[in-house]
Structures are given as C-alpha cells and as structure tokens.
C-alpha cells in the first residue's frame, strides 16, 4: 500500500474529470489516497472528491488563489507534500497540470514521468508507461533515486470511475501564505465556444483539409454540440487557416486520447495519427478508400463528408432524444 497524493484540479468551481480518474485508480488499488485542491470557494468540492476515492482532501481556499499561477500553486503544494511524506504524487497532464507538476518535482528534487497512459501500483511504488515520439512508441519509466515518485496522466487514459455517493472525504483546511509571489494573473478571457478542451473531451470531432474552408466546420460544430464533444483539426486545416492552432491534433499540436475520435476528411498523415492513435474508438469518414486513416480506424465510412456528417448528426440527435 502506498500513501498517495492526488493533485486535484478545478476551473471555475468545477472539478476536472481527470482528477476523478487518478483518485479512482489509486483508491481501487487500496492505497491511502489524499487529494489537495486549491482555489477560491472550493471547500465544498471536497465531498465530491471523496465519492471518487479520496480519504482526506486538503483544501487551500482563498480569494488569492482564484486564478492559477504555477508559482503560487507549486509552492503551496510543495510545502504541504514535504510536511507529509508521500510515496507517490499523481497529477493530470492537462493544460494546468503540465505547467504545475514539473515545478513541484523541481522543489522535491525528484523525477516526474509526464503524460503517462498506464498505471500500476506495486507495494508503495508505481509502474507507469508513456507514449514517446508522439505515440509512435511507448516506454516504461524507471524512477532513479529516493523521494516520492511523481507521474502525470493523459486525460481519459485511466477512465473515470463511478462515484460512490455513500462515501465522503475528511476535509482538512490548509492556510498557506498566499503573498510574496512574483507572477500574477490579471485577467482571464473565456473561450467563446463553451465546448470542452480538445485534450479533455470524451469525444472529439475533427476536420481536415477536405473541409475546404472555415465556414464548413459549422457542420462539425453541430455534431460536436449534439455529442458534447470538442472540435479538433488536422495540421493541414490549421495551416490553411480554417481553425486556430489550439484545436490542432497531432505531433505539433495536441495529443488526445478520447473515448471516441471522429476524423472527417482527414487523410491521416503520420504526425496526425501520432496525436490521436490512443483514442479508444476511431471513426474515419473520407472519400478516398486508400487514405491511411482507415488503417487505424475501427469504423470506416467511405463517403463524402458533406453528405455524411449532417446525416450522422441527425442520427446522433435521435439517439440522444431516445
């Protein structure tokens, strides 16, 4: 059994599903599972973390922590971790976790295995694997030296457990110093779409060069909104100016691992496949039956996407209304 700290994440008072994945994996293996959560008005979220497996939730709730900064969050979590002596510290390879986890590792002078996709507990140690070369290969990560083992996980890689509403966590309040930091966040501009981030979404609908222009992505947005999905794009579509870079899936964009990836008019360049091949189920819609994307697709539809996508959207809508 290991003493595990899960670095939980929230944005605007909503916990990240990726945090539930970590709690579920740790508690299912019978570990003493703690969570730490920082923010403003987040004390009430402790209970929900308990339903996913946290035994104790350590909360730093302060107006000064309303916005994430790597500097402040890392210092607070680092001081806490040092005071407790954890065997294992887990976080998510989300936009926030990517920034945060290395800073904690530096302070503890330990290694961090980032963007892992598998996790096993062995006594008070972990065994993890991660993709390398954007998923063209995977490797096991060996930890060298003493101190807690740290790892961050690709969202959706471990799976979200069912919450147990009968369980709750003990909530412990932390009162860290929240001043004296050099960096500060002055403003947050919300994303316009209201759709989930492409790296965190359970379903991603992506378009390629065959979308022809930016306006045509509307049909993918409509499908995405029926499914609660994010909209992604290939590099070809981004370089043609159809979508912003933040939507790009691939080796020079984002690496995603959703439960369902629907590739529309994407031929499947090696760099794109690298960014989405760990998706659980892949659907490809393309007019070219020889397109490389069909080699990794679980379901292939040889069809004109402009005819197929609206029909699919209608079918998904029927299913959801059922």
């Amino acid at each position, binding site marked *: 059994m290991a003493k595990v700290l899960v670095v939980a994440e929230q944005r605007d008072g909503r916990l990240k599903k990726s945090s539930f994945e970590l709690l579920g994996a740790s508690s299912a293996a019978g570990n003493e599972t703690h969570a730490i959560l920082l923010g403003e008005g987040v004390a009430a979220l402790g209970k929900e973390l308990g339903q996913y497996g946290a035994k104790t939730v350590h909360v730093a709730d302060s107006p000064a922590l309303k916005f994430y900064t790597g500097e402040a969050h890392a210092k607070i979590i680092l001081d806490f971790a040092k005071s407790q002596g954890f065997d294992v510290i887990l976080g998510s390879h989300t936009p926030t976790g990517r920034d945060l986890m290395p800073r904690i*590792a530096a302070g503890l002078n330990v290694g961090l295995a980032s963007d892992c996709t598998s996790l096993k507990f062995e006594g008070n140690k972990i065994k993890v694997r991660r993709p390398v070369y954007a998923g063209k290969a995977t490797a096991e990560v060996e930890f060298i030296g003493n101190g807690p083992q740290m790892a961050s996980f690709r969202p959706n890689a471990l799976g979200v457990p069912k919450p147990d509403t009968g369980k709750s966590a003990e909530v412990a309040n932390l009162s860290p110093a929240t001043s004296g930091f050099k960096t500060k966040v002055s403003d947050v501009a919300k*994303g316009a779409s*209201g759709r989930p*981030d492409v790296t965190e979404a359970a379903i991603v609908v992506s378009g390629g060069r065959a979308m022809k222009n930016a306006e045509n992505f509307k049909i993918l947005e409509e499908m995405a909104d029926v499914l609660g999905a994010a909209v992604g794009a290939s590099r070809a579509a981004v370089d043609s100016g159809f979508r912003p870079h933040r939507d790009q899936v691939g080796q020079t964009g984002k690496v995603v691992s959703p439960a369902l990836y629907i590739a529309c008019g994407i031929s499947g360049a090696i760099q794109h496949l690298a960014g989405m091949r760990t998706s659980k189920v892949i659907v490809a819609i393309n007019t070219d039956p020889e397109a490389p994307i069909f080699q990794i697709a679980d379901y*292939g539809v040889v069809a004109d996407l402009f005819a197929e996508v609206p029909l699919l959207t209608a079918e998904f809508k029927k299913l959801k209304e059922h």
Partner: protein
Amino acid sequence: MNIYVCIKQVPDTETKIKLNSDNTGIDTAGIKWIMSPYDEFAVEEALRLREKNAGSTVTVLSAGPARVVEAIRTALAMGADHGIHVEIPETADSNMSAKALAGALKKEAKVDIVFTGKEAIDDGAAQVSQLAAEYFGIPCVTVVLGVEYGASLKCKREIEGGAFEMVETPLPAWIAAQKGMNEPRYASLPNIMKAKKKEVKALKAADVGVADSDQKIRFKNFELPPPKQAGKKIAGEPAAQAKELVRLLHEEAKVV
C-alpha cells in the same frame, strides 16, 4: 538586452520510429534531426526582441550529444549571435537537461530573458522550461502566445477550452513559446554561410555542475504500438451508413 534561447534537437516529424535491438531506445540510424518546432518560435521571438532593442545579443543554448550543435547552427543561421553547447548523454532526462541549461546560464554575466519552446516534440514532457527556470531562479510563464514588453512582461498564456489568461511577470523571466506567437523566419543562404563561422562555446556537464545523480528518470522497455486490427468498413448509401455507424457506436463500441 542579453537574450537567451534554449533549444532541443529532435527527430523530424516524418520519422518512422524503429526500436534498437534491446528495446532500450530507438534506432537513431538514418534519422533526420531538426530543431524542435516550438523552439523556432522561441528563436524568432528572441530575434525580434533584439531588433527592437539596439545593442542586444541573442545566445542559443542546447544540451545534448555532439549532434545538437547542428541545431544550434540552424538558430545561428536564423540570426542568433552566439551558441553554447553543453554536452550531456543522449539518454539524459528532463531534469538533467534543465540542470545543464540552468548551469550554463549561471556562468553568463547577465541574463535578462530566456525563451524556449513550450515542449519538445520527441518526448513531449513539457518539463524543461519550468525546471530550468526554477534551477536558475527566475519566474517562468508557459504556453505563451504573445508578450507585451515593458518594465514587466504581460504574457498572453493559452489555457484550456480556447481561453487565455494574462500573466504579469518581472524581468528576468523565462518564456515558453506556443505556436502562433510569431511567424519564424527562414535562414537565408548568406546567413547560413555566416552561421558556420559563429562561435559555439563547448561545455562539459561537469563545467556546469551536472552530475550523474541529476538523472531522475530513465525510459526502458520500449514498445511499438500494437498494429491495429483492420476496422469495419460500413457500406451503403450515406443515410444507411449513418444509421449503421450510430448503431455500432451505441451497441457494439458503447461510446455514445
């Protein structure tokens, strides 16, 4: 200003990855090496900052085996003034690389700002910027799309779901660039020729205080992804295809 850029050399994105004979790494024979694409935005930003501040210099650093000097030359050909190469093993992890870069920066007289790419595309760990800034002792802002330069820096930082935040930091600071920050220039032929004559200072790990114990993780037991079984092709008219696909996703794959 004394401007620094840290870069990494990585296999070209077209590379088909093969494993070495004992699965302890990849087979590097025949690989075409490039500067990691995100680092190009870092180099470009450094050059633009130099152009706005007369008397500034841009120094490019890279830590790695001897081959990484080629990537330093690429940055020099884009227009950087000096290069520094810290020799560390091929198998160095993010922590050792960060210690090497921070150690080399500590030997410099004055460092005003450091740029890096937000991650390298080989291991995609996205760790070195934060680690090295921490070891060098300056604030770090990652995934930066743009900077307003002044007495302090106002950085537009990308967060999830298409949202942004403005992060303010004093100088010196470490800025990790995201694609879209600028449009990197191509090296002109005369600049490529000039770059060959520019000085690249060579440092050993021990010169910058890096020890074997700075390696904290090691990759092993490499595997190639298992070949995917051929999927189902769904035939028929578009309407029938749509119906059948949704049925399969719901009943067989159970993902909707």
